[in-house]
């Protein structure tokens, strides 16, 4: 394993110090540190392999990729397994080469001071793959060739080096945004109520606006006309064969209704509704979804966050990497992987899908989003 908590800590320091925009003095300080490496490594345009490999373009380069240098099996394997020398991995390695990668043959005790590590990396980052000055933060020129790649693909040709470097920090471009300009564009609303404008509106008033400006597409009761979106109903269908995802059955937060109707509806005439109208429409959509049942109910900035949608608890964060087929990162089967000959279990449901053929009115598949 080549990731240690120490390395991550160091990397954080490095990022705070913005390697991409390393100060000139960091690079200078790094050059002094590099004196400790010079016995074995060279950098610059005429660099050659010595006891250790050439370190031009090392930041962003895959480990063990300098041609003609005989790496230890440990280093070669790490490179083949995907070790790329970025700020994090270099920090870990240079801090304690032995501990970081067992069996590698760099006979060097390591740099004990964090700032030495930071500075020497800044210095190394100032050399491109050809030994000329590099542009900080650019896509690493040489891709990590993968030893598992048995295809004959050539790795990407190194992109031509740019000379000179890009300074970080402020450029004095742009001008101050005025409070009036920010207010004009910043209409977004969050679940905690941040962004809600002053105002209020009742279910009854919302119904009037809805019938006039929304029902043609979304239907009198939010059931939708044709293929326009359904806005109400569907409670209890999320595990069904055909789930119906609506504000009442699926949406986690009421603030989304306010925000979206305000920014994008009615379709074809967005941003034409006043704040009170949006409160009223939001109240009416709650009513259509049986979340409030009183036509006199008034939704306002003050009571907004007290209303919770029924499905709020049923969302969880991305955990795809734990799915069995991803968690198990083993080599896939190549021969005799399944018994018997393949047989068709299902044909394309919609054969002639091209516009010339018209297609079918009602496909069995899900929607596009």
């Amino acid at each position, binding site marked *: 394993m080549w990731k240690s908590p120490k390395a991550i800590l160091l990397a954080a320091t490095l990022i705070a110090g913005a390697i991409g925009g390393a100060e000139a003095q960091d690079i200078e300080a790094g050059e002094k540190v590099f004196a400790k490496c010079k016995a074995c490594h060279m950098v610059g345009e005429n660099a050659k392999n010595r006891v250790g490999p050439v370190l031009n373009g090392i930041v962003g380069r895959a480990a063990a990729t300098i041609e003609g240098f005989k790496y230890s099996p440990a280093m070669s394997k790490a490179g083949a397994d995907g070790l790329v020398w970025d700020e994090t991995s270099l920090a870990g390695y240079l801090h304690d080469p032995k501990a970081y990668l067992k069996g590698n043959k760099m006979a060097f005790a390591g740099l004990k001071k964090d700032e030495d590590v930071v500075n020497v990396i800044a210095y190394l980052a100032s050399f491109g793959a050809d030994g000329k000055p590099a542009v900080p933060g650019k896509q690493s020129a040489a891709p*990590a060739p993968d030893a598992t790649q048995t295809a*004959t693909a050539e790795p990407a040709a190194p992109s031509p080096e740019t000379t000179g470097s890009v300074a970080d920090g402020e450029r004095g471009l742009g001008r101050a945004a005025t409070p009036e300009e920010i207010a004009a564009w910043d209409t977004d609303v969050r679940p905690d109520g941040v962004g809600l404008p002053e105002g209020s509106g009742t279910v009854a008033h919302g119904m009037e606006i809805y019938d006039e400006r929304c029902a043609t597409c979304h239907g009198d009761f939010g059931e939708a006309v044709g293929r326009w979106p359904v806005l109400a109903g569907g409670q209890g269908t999320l595990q069904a064969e055909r789930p119906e995802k609506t504000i009442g059955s699926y949406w986690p937060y009421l603030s989304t209704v306010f925000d979206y109707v305000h920014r994008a509806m009615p379709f074809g005439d*967005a941003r034409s509704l006043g704040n009170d109208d949006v409160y009223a429409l939001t109240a009416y959509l709650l009513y259509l979804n049986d979340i409030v049942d009183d036509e006199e109910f008034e939704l306002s900035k003050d009571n907004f966050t007290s209303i919770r949608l029924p499905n709020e608890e049923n969302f969880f964060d991305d955990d795809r990497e734990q799915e069995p087929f991803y968690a198990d990162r083993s080599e896939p089967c190549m021969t005799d992987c399944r018994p018997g*000959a393949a047989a068709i279990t299902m044909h394309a449901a919609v054969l002639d899908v091209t516009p010339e053929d018209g297609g079918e009115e009602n496909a069995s598949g899900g929607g596009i989003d």
Partner: protein
Amino acid sequence: MTSNARPGASRRAVLKGGLMGAAALAGGAAASRAAASESVITEIQDWNRYPGDGVDARPYGTPSPFEAHVVRKNVPWLTSDTISSINFTPLHELDGIITPSGLCFERHHSGVAEIDPASHRLMIHGLVEKPLVFTMADLKRFPRENRVYFLECAANTGMEWRGAQLNGCQFTHGMLHCLMYTGVRLKHLLDEAGVKAEGKWLLAEGADASGMSRSIPLDKAMDDCLVAFGMNGEALRPEQGYPIRLVVPGWEGNMWVKWLRRLEIGDQPWQHREETSKYTDLMANGKARRFTFEMDVKSVITNPSPQAPILHGRGPLVLSGLAWSGKGRISRVDVTTDGGRNWTTARLDGPSLPKALHRFYHEFDWDGSELFLQSRAIDEHGFVQPTKDQLRSVRGANSIYHNNGIQTWHVNSDGVIENVEIS
């Protein structure tokens, strides 16, 4: 037009004609070496005799009229209106890894905004030291970068959750493109405004009539995101967000906000419509995954495929396809012709760039027998493209998004190809 051929003739007619031709030739590959003289050689052709158009006939060049069938296509019954709809990249007609600008699929929520760059502004505000407004001229004074990235809609292949649906990789996999972007680092713009320590999320908003908005973790924004004004060496096309769009490498296409006008820094996500009602992945148990930003390792065979049947009969065949991963480079692609019983490693060709499309080829002699073609991609981190059944066993069939399952094409002995699911 001096030619007597029929540009624009129905693609289907061409295909049908071609298929019959192929059937007639089947088995005659060796014999065809001794064919009769062809009039295209023995007779003088018009283009051989009379001059063609002069230099300025097409000030902005267009493809040959014989390529008129190579276009994006929409599936009209999918959505209620083309203003909020989708069309698909004709992957089966393309090669290499770069998608031609005019063939990149379109997904708009309120049509294509037409914006004069002189009237476009980008605002940064929220948890920053200095709220700022940039003009296009300001943006072009930041250091520029050129990067090749794929963009895939999270709903690409979404129709196939319930089994084989649409007959053609344009429709099953065509919400995909790969371009070289020119732009500036989002980090440089944010640094200019000075993000406060409490800042953890970024809201990106478009200037179109849908006001498209997405919450993006600040770490990603500071890492490799770009504000792009160029694609494939020229200005962005209006359909792709002219004058500027956000580039969020490896992450779902919806986050790459087009017609970008506003960036707000906050301490938590906004939970807007496109990250709650949409782009959340409903599981079989009724619960839903959210913030599934990254696009998984995936591949598809683009040729042969249902819209690109085998017309040449038996003998040498070039199989080709695309592979990609939101986590980085593709390290390997395997293909099978027997429906996953035995696999061969395909040949990757062309540049191998992180979070970009990779092109693969597999050349073999087709003996005219039935084939079940599949491809399986593996990325540099060892993630292997799963089968559709593996995905369904964990997620059910109502996820809509993030279907990266292995695709099967059935080839019959006439070279006709169909989208199928197999045992």
